[in-house]
């Protein structure tokens, strides 16, 4: 049974696209046929994060409007055999996405044997964000340990629980919390909300905690989904999150400041 997963947050700039790229790549690396769809109509960026911006010919809206077939629009990822990207359109017409059109594309993907469909939501709670979450049966709510992001996450959780298709059918959407840009040092000094605090406020299952890491920007500069950087803590944290999404029990890592040994301290700068 195919799974439709929305990556959403309400607030912008918290790491939705980074997460969509990492999770979809991670699922494909684990052997699952995965499609990732950019719902940010007018402001497409997933293509850039996944390094396929120069291979975009047709987009999501072209497929909805019947101007291209799904097969023509899907871009095969160069790194993962099982991964396909459906880029957003650059049109400024916000109503280009219709419920019927989106449903048709999702059904066609399922017919083509895709096991996971990741919907990368735009920021806000407008039409695009609503379309991205409406058909989802699982939601990954991305939140930074910061007041405005946590509040917006709660708004999005409320929308998932009342406006999604599953809510209309009297069912629930499986909700996961993913805390990104986490800085254990600042949490320990009392300047940042801890993951327990965020989880307590939102009362949602914790999928993972992604540490604030320089490697994330370095990866996006190159169009490399961060999960491919197996040396980086953020990449490893995303791999753990993918394992949890697949039902494995994995302990959370990178939640406290690493205690560095004498030599590590001495040579800290050389790393």
């Amino acid at each position, binding site marked *: 049974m195919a799974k439709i997963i929305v990556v959403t947050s309400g607030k912008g700039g918290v790491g939705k696209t980074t997460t969509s790229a990492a999770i979809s790549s991670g699922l494909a690396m684990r052997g699952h046929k995965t499609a990732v769809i950019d719902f940010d109509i007018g402001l497409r960026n997933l293509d850039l994060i996944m390094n396929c911006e120069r291979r975009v010919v047709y987009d999501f809206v072209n497929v909805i409007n019947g101007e291209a077939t799904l097969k023509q629009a899907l871009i095969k990822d160069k790194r993962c055999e099982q991964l396909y990207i459906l880029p957003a359109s650059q049109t400024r017409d916000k109503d280009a996405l219709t419920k019927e059109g989106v449903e048709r594309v999702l059904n066609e993907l399922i017919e083509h044997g895709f096991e996971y469909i990741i919907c990368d939501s735009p920021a806000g709670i407008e039409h695009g964000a609503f379309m991205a979450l409406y058909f989802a049966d699982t939601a990954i709510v991305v939140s930074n340990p*910061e*007041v405005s992001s*946590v*509040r917006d996450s*709660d*708004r999005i959780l*409320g929308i998932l629980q*009342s406006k999604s298709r599953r809510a209309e059918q009297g069912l629930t959407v499986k909700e996961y919390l993913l805390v990104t840009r986490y800085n254990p040092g600042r*949490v320990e000094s*009392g*300047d*940042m*909300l*801890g993951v327990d*605090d965020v989880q307590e*406020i*939102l009362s949602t299952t914790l999928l993972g905690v992604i540490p604030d890491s320089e490697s994330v920007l370095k990866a996006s500069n190159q169009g490399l989904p961060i999960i491919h950087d197996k040396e980086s803590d953020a990449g490893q944290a995303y791999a753990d999150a993918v394992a949890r999404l697949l039902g494995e029990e994995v302990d959370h890592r990178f939640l406290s400041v690493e205690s560095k040994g004498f030599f590590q301290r001495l040579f800290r700068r050389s790393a």
Partner: protein
Amino acid sequence: MSIFDYFKNTKKNTASIAKERLQVIVAHERNKRNQPDYLPALQQEILEVIRKYVNIDQEHIDVQLENNGDCSILELNVTLPD
């Protein structure tokens, strides 16, 4: 307040302030979210009825719906002027 207390205060844990503020606003917004759509209209009509007899403002009336398991309580609070 001694000078030492002053320095202590400036070091107050900002994360705990954030948590308290979030708990208050999130609880408030969840409560609002769970209320049925007809509540504002109901409040307006009750206000108009009371106004026939006593002159009160919008802020003197408060309507809330609380759900306790299988029973709902409609709470109406009207503050009458002196």
